[in-house]
């Protein structure tokens, strides 16, 4: 038990975390007090999710300690963390989609009576809980049929039901409308009164000041600022989040904008994005900023033919091209997706194989692949992009994230696209490689390629792009010129509607 009510119920000291040579967390100190809501803020990539996973027992820290109720604790696994009273509500639901809401609330802990499971008793208790929390979801509904917002509410209700002492919410607001948000907040107020310590990860500033007692800001893997919510304002938060010097304007060759190669006209897809319109010219870099969930990836997928919009149209080089990945690629669209593991690499295949997979035709004669030709192309790419280790016969899964990224970029560029969509191209890449990639992109653009750059690295975005579109909640909120203030971009990106 904590020695006094002022002592934190959970304390993280000097937590570091390394992933295969990349330092995700560099010595984080973090305190949680019972009965208080702590907002955890930071850009994409600041390390918030990693920190949360450590608290929840999903990752083990490389060094540092976790102190729970004054005692050193090891969160060996998610199950152990749960037993210590830690409950996490992620953005992707971790409940059983085929079972009812009621059953999910009591999963693994069904109430019993003499003649079996006490469904009636569970229903009564759950109804009461839902009423108290203002949740209006039928208990008999199938969980998989619920909207994300509702599923989230069920998860929170479940955590409360299990008597969680530390409740962590990962971007809960991103899927809720105003009403649902209010319900959520009153729900959290209830929990506070019961002594629960809440961690609330969000980007939405007005939420922060509505609900949080304390604010912790993370940047580049460390916690850089900590304050009582009542003592600071929006501007302070933004400044802490962006922080670093934006003095280096990324060197760009001046290129006169050419013809329009990509025209996106009023495309929309229910629940993902709406009324998105813009044009992209040869020789220009168009930046697309916005938070995760704002719709950037989905727009990229729509352009690449992986997603078909319900409305509007997309013209590549002035023509309508069927919405299929192969057709769009044949028409000159290249897409480097954001999720390396799921959408990009073939982990157990060699680097050679990964790089040349989509351009094997040119290395084939009479149907047979000429391995020397294939290998030569891979060697050239390895050299051009400085892929390490320079052993392209290795399985790509053995390479670090940054080198995998470079190999993927190499693959996309093998087809010499005229419209190149880069999504988080330098994520997980070290400084030296970052610069290399930027130089390559600059050269491509100077040679006439049109680039759509999606990046959560704001300095990179405002430094490289000729102009920046900011997306928010599925729509384009603003357009900013090159060299705009990253703080300005950030502010637009997460100001909620009505501001």
């Amino acid at each position, binding site marked *: 038990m904590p020695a006094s009510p002022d002592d934190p119920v959970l304390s993280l000291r000097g937590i570091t975390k390394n*992933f295969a040579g990349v330092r995700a967390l560099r010595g984080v100190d973090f305190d949680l007090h019972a009965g208080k809501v702590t907002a955890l803020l930071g850009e994409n*990539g600041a390390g918030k999710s990693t920190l949360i996973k450590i608290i929840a027992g999903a990752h083990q820290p490389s060094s540092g300690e976790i102190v729970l109720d004054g005692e050193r604790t090891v969160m060996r696994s998610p199950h152990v963390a749960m037993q210590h009273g830690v409950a996490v509500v992620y953005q992707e639901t971790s409940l059983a*989609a085929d079972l009812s809401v009621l059953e999910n609330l009591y999963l693994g802990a069904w109430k019993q009576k003499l003649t079996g499971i006490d469904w009636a008793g569970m229903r009564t208790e759950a109804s009461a809980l839902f009423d108290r929390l203002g949740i209006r979801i039928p208990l008999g509904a199938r969980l998989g049929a619920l909207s994300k917002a509702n599923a989230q509410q069920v998860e929170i209700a479940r955590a409360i039901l299990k008597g969680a002492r530390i409740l962590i919410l990962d971007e809960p607001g991103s899927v809720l409308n105003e009403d649902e948000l209010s319900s959520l907040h009153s729900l959290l107020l209830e929990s506070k009164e019961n002594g629960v310590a809440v961690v609330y990860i969000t980007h939405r500033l007005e939420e922060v000041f509505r609900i949080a007692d304390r604010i912790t800001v993370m940047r580049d893997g460390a916690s850089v600022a900590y304050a009582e919510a009542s003592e600071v304002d929006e501007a302070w938060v933004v400044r802490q989040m962006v922080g670093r010097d934006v003095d280096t304007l990324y060197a760009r060759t001046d290129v006169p904008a050419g013809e329009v190669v990509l025209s996106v006209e009023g495309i929309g897809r229910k629940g993902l994005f709406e009324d998105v319109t813009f044009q992209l010219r040869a020789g220009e870099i168009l930046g697309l900023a916005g938070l995760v969930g704002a719709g950037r990836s989905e727009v990229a997928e729509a352009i690449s033919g992986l997603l078909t919009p319900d409305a509007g149209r997309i013209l590549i080089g002035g023509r309508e091209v069927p919405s299929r990945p*192969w057709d769009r690629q044949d028409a000159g669209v290249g897409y480097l997706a954001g999720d390396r593991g799921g959408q990009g690499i*073939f982990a*157990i295949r060699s680097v050679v194989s990964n790089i040349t*997979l*989509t351009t094997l035709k040119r290395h084939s004669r009479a149907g047979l692949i000429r391995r020397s030709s294939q290998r030569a192309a891979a060697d050239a790419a390895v050299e051009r992009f400085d892929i390490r280790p320079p052993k392209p016969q290795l399985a790509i899964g053995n390479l670090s994230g940054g080198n995998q990224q470079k190999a993927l970029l190499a693959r996309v560029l093998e087809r010499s696209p005229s419209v190149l969509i880069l999504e988080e191209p330098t994520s997980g890449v070290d400084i030296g490689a970052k610069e290399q990639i930027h130089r390559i992109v600059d050269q491509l653009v100077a040679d006439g390629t049109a680039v759509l750059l999606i990046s959560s690295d704001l300095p990179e975005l405002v430094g490289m792009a000729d102009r920046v579109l900011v997306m928010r909640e599925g729509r384009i909120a603003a357009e900013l010129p090159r060299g705009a203030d990253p703080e300005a971009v950030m502010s637009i990106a997460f100001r909620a509607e009505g501001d």
Partner: protein
Amino acid sequence: MRAETSRVLPAVILGSLLLATVVVMSLLSPRFLALSNILSALSLAAPLGIIAIGMTVVILIGGIDLSVGSILALSTVSIGVAAQAGLPAWLAAVVGLAVGAGCGLVNGLLVSRLGLPSIVVTIATMAVFAGLALAVSGGSSLPAPAEFTFLGFGRIAGIPMPLVVWLLVFVVALIAISGTRYGEHIYALGTNPRALRYAGLHDRRLTASAFVLSGLLSGLAGLVFMATVSSAKSNFGQGYELAVVTIVVVGGAALTGGAGTLWGTLLATAVIALIRNGLSIAFVPSEVQTLVTGAALIVTAVLYQWAPALVAQLRGRRDVPPPAVTESVTVTDPGSEPAHPPAASRRHTTKKETMQ
């Protein structure tokens, strides 16, 4: 992923298995090691070997085809009926192959277009094709055209024809799978179906093609088998799916897809063929042979599953995690956006934790 261990170990296991088989079988009967016996044993296993090649491709993409035996049966009776209807022998043979490919296409479409799990689909089509075979043949045995005699009993350079055909198919398949674009795409599809679509390749077409290939080769196997028994009956091929899956698994292919080689399948076919032959000439009853096949499947599967971890432990590496099992239920998400991406990508997130 330690690439070296993961490729050497299965080869070592398979090699040892082959060696053990030869040793045990020759101990069981002195007649085993005669060249004529070995050739005969391999020739007898030719239909299985041909089907196993097709099955390997299907398993490479993460699916399974349990209808191969029934496709074989349907092909043979189709040939028989076509021959009886007066078609020249070569045309009847083509009919058989076309029927096989057609059956494969049905499987392929159900799996790739509708996203149905190949395991259940092919259990169902196994029954349907068998029923069709019965319908087509009317339950009776049909004679094979006289021209098939050479295929069934002839020899080239002392090697029985069925074996020749099998080896030819193997060589063509090997070239196709290891040396062409198609092969590279197949391996990629089995490794990460989602990424394949993102890379702009025809994931669904590729999926269906694997099943068509399996069906086609089952038809070819039927042709060869028919030639060796000079007849066609609707109950041919029963139980083949067990033998062929056993072969492919013993050969080192993983049911999750993306791993496995045709060489492994070839060697494994030889192992199974020699086991069966050795047991028969030692007058071991057929039920024991069935038992041994089942045991071989289980033992080998367990070995492949646990050997890497065991080896790592022997080497004193404590950071190698125990094997993860994947239950292959369906092949490819046919383009519709997955509702739960974490589950889909979990398979491809290796033990290395990923950032964020």
